[in-house]
């Protein structure tokens, strides 16, 4: 791209023509190479979001490649601007205008073509990186298209409410917990939903983010690859305590996970909590509670509403 600019500039008469285009190109190539090497070898291994899960690894790779492509572009613009600021400043006493260059079809076409190629390549790469790791940890809505293969998918439902996430495990009797615990090396399907306003489930080190909408089941997939702790934060403004709506989860060995899950299920069954919870469903509407006790119905309460809408409405959210 830069090389053709050397041909474009008309030489001032009587002056030995310095090949500005070549100089700029050389400086650019050196700087861009150094930058890309630094990015790939020094920065890539430490790039967020890390390597704790499959989606995190792929996102890290994706961001590294984007950075590899972005760095030469930015360095090219900065090198060029810097070069012009150094070489083509106004000298005192020189009140002439500059050369009347209105355009150059070749350069314009090259630029447009070049940027189009880079952009389309980025699109193809991004799509591949989205599909390959089963949706790259992003929420895919109720009908996910890119799912992990394999048959031992762990189902975890993430219920967002103002201002706490809770988690239900349908494969363990539908027991519910306030702390997310996952087994390592087993693909997880997160079913994210909300009971009131829009939240967003962001497990940072697992690189999963899915919005929690009321009445909607938003599915996201990942496979944790290392044991350890991770942070869960709400990343959609949901009211006053949005900033405090965070918690810590753990990835543990499969054996420890079975112990934990089964113990919790047992305790909740014993205490009657499992029976008190609604049957596991992909979405919940707390304004209509079929299990409502007779005493409450006698008092005129049929659900957990706020009585915003008049009572003559069929439900009272």
């Amino acid at each position: 791209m830069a090389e053709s600019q050397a041909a474009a500039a008309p030489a001032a008469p009587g002056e030995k023509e310095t090949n500005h285009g070549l100089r700029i190109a050389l400086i650019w190539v050196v700087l861009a190479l150094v930058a890309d090497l630094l990015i790939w070898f020094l920065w890539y291994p430490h790039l967020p979001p890390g390597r704790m899960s499959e989606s995190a690894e792929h996102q890290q790779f994706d961001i590294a490649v984007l950075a590899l492509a972005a760095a030469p572009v930015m360095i090219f613009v900065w090198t060029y601007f810097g070069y012009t600021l150094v070489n083509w400043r106004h000298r005192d006493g020189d009140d002439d205008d500059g050369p009347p260059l209105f355009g150059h079809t070749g350069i314009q076409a090259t630029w447009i073509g070049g940027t189009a190629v880079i952009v389309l390549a980025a699109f193809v790469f991004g799509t591949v990186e989205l599909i390959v790791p089963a949706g790259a940890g992003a929420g895919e809505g109720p009908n996910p298209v890119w799912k992990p293969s394999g048959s031992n998918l762990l189902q975890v439902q993430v219920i967002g409410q103002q201002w706490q996430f809770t988690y239900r495990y349908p494969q363990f009797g539908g027991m519910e917990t306030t702390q997310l615990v996952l087994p390592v090396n087993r693909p997880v399907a997160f079913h994210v939903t909300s009971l009131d306003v829009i939240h967003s489930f962001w497990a940072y080190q697992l690189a999963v983010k899915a919005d929690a909408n009321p009445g909607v089941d938003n599915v996201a997939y990942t496979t944790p690859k290392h044991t350890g702790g991770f942070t869960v934060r709400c990343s959609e403004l949901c009211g006053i305590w949005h900033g405090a709506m965070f918690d810590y989860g753990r990835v543990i060995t499969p054996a420890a996970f079975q112990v934990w899950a089964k113990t919790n299920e047992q305790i909740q069954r014993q205490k009657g909590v499992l029976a008190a919870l609604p049957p596991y469903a992909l979405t919940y509407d707390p304004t209509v509670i079929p299990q409502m006790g007779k005493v409450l119905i006698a008092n005129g309460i049929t659900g957990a509403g706020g009585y915003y809408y008049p009572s003559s409405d069929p439900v009272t959210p």
Partner: protein
Amino acid sequence: MSLPARIVTLLVAFAAVVAGAVFIVVHYLGSSLEVVNYTSAASGGVVNVVLQEDPQNNSSSKPDWVSYYVQDPKTKAWVHTTLFTVPKNTRVNMTILGYDGCTPARNNFWSLVQGTIGNSMTVQQFKTVGQPVGPAQRASVRNTWSDCSVGHTFAIPSLHLYVPIASPVTALFNKDGCTDSPCTEGPHSMVKFSFMTPKNTGTFRWQCFIPCGGGFLDGNGGPMQTLGYMMGNMEVAA
């Protein structure tokens, strides 16, 4: 306009802008709620904290909003606030008087008592102050959906503490529930539980998980989202 006139106008305008900004900062950005200090009431590593939740409040322009009150440890008066301070690494014996009637939770998981010492609470019902109805009973689950039995919850999420607060006996509440806040008489429940405050200082938010903001969508607006009513801060001090 002459130069002196311009300078004077400029200074007046500047003063007005500064005054306006200071007014907004002082009146609207700060918190005007009182913080009830329990640190001096602690002794031997134990402190007793008393709260109550009422179906209305008399202390603001929103009288129909449900509200918590905190009892001042020295004067025993009820303060309309939800901010209190406790010492660190101390056992807090919390007593909450529940004057408000029942509402089902949006998530019935909050029926389970979690995070207290022994993972349970004791509940005793009262006809009015000083007149119990039945003995104090230990419970670890109080189902908000099957019975008219839970008014609000008290939860400190970062300590994983969640306690459903019992509502008064339904028949008694329907007959003469408290209508004048802060409630000093009328049917209520007394819920007691204990937990340890952490070893480090900090601010810990607490909230109710029962949607009792009547007249708001999903019941989670109004008092549920305003400090001084159904949510507050527990300050853990040195």
